């Protein structure tokens, strides 16, 4: 009973007070929603680095980080959660250190693995929301497919050069998934990742911060089944910073994953029947 009367510690009230008094956050109730929520961030790179500290700062109770890559000097202009002393360290571990120091009330789990059809399900199942901060079409299809099969909502974003894109996939298992937007994968030759294309740190960083805001809105139920409309927001950093929100198609009945006769089932993904390497072409991708 005492516990219900004061649902948070004094330290938490102090820590989150400035955020709780913003009406849109829903006060104590909203703060408890954040504390009880579990968010999985796939990729601790250019998007994950700016999203993660804001998620931890806001008090999202459980954060998972999937990344099997290690910190490299060439990452540091944009992956600013890491640093020069951490070159060679796993990005997920580097990020976890920072988050633990930022907010000890948040539990952080790391998964230093390369995400695939076999290992994704048990990990995703533990979380409420997935942030797709990866950098290849392969992982974008995989994350969306697994999320649809586990009924999870995904905040998905990407960036290159001075531009970025952001969308919400499989919203409450009613919104469109990645395959609704992109039923046919792009040919590998047409895809450039940031490794080849280059990227301005704060431009991809801004999109990562946007992802943190979107998942907070999902948790605080700013988006409802009534109010949510499928969208894709496009960011340009140069010459003038701008955001444009495109109204997008809804869930497609013909979608191979979320449609009426899905072939991209859990079994097909876990068994390797859906071959993401083949599906997206033979070029090697880095998660």
């Amino acid at each position, binding site marked *: 009973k005492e516990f219900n009367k004061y649902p948070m510690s004094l330290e938490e009230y102090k820590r989150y007070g400035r955020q709780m008094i913003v009406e849109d956050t829903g006060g104590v109730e909203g703060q408890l929603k954040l504390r009880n929520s579990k968010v999985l961030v796939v*990729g601790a*790179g*250019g*998007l*994950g680095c700016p999203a993660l500290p804001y998620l931890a700062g806001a008090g999202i109770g459980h954060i998972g980080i999937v990344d099997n890559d290690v910190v490299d000097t060439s990452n540091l202009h944009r992956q600013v959660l890491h640093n020069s002393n951490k070159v060679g360290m796993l990005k997920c571990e580097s990020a976890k250190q920072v988050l633990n120091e930022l907010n000890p009330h948040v539990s952080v789990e790391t998964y230093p693995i390369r995400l695939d059809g076999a290992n994704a399900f048990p990990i995703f199942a533990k979380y409420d929301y997935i942030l*797709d*901060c*990866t*950098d*290849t*079409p392969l992982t*974008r299809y995989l994350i969306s497919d697994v999320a649809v099969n586990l009924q999870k909502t995904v905040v998905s*974003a*990407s*960036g*290159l*050069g001075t*531009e*970025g*894109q952001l969308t919400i996939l499989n919203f409450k298992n009613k919104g469109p998934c990645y395959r609704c*937007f*992109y*039923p*046919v*994968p*792009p*040919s590998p030759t*047409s*895809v*450039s*990742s*940031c490794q080849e*294309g280059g*990227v301005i740190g704060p431009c*991809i960083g801004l999109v990562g911060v946007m992802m943190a805001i979107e998942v907070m809105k999902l948790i605080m139920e700013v988006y409802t089944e009534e109010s949510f409309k499928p969208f*894709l927001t*496009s960011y*340009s950093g140069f010459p003038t910073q701008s955001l*444009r*929100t*495109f*109204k*997008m*198609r809804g869930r497609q009945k013909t979608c191979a994953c979320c449609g009426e006769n899905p072939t991209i089932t859990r079994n097909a993904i876990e068994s390797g029947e859906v071959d993401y390497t083949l599906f997206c072409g033979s070029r090697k991708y880095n998660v």
Partner: protein
Amino acid sequence: MVTVKVEFLGGLDVIFDKQRIHMVNVDSSETPTVKDLIDYIVKNMIRNPNDVDVFIENGTIRPGILTLINDTDWELEGGEEYELEDGDVISFTSTLHGG
């Protein structure tokens, strides 16, 4: 003749002299559609023939490129058959994958 604003976003501008925004006049015996616009772009606006594959695959917009009509997904507006009106903004944006 219909005059529309055409935008190439997400890096697609590289095959259009690095210009993102173009004003395009589409002529057609009947009311021109987005399909007519795409044909016009391929014929008249892509200078280097090698670049056509970046824009078109199997006769339509390449997978991975989103087409927007006045900031709305063309799937909601009738796709290729959408009839152009003066002042329409047709945007093509390459999907980004970097993170």
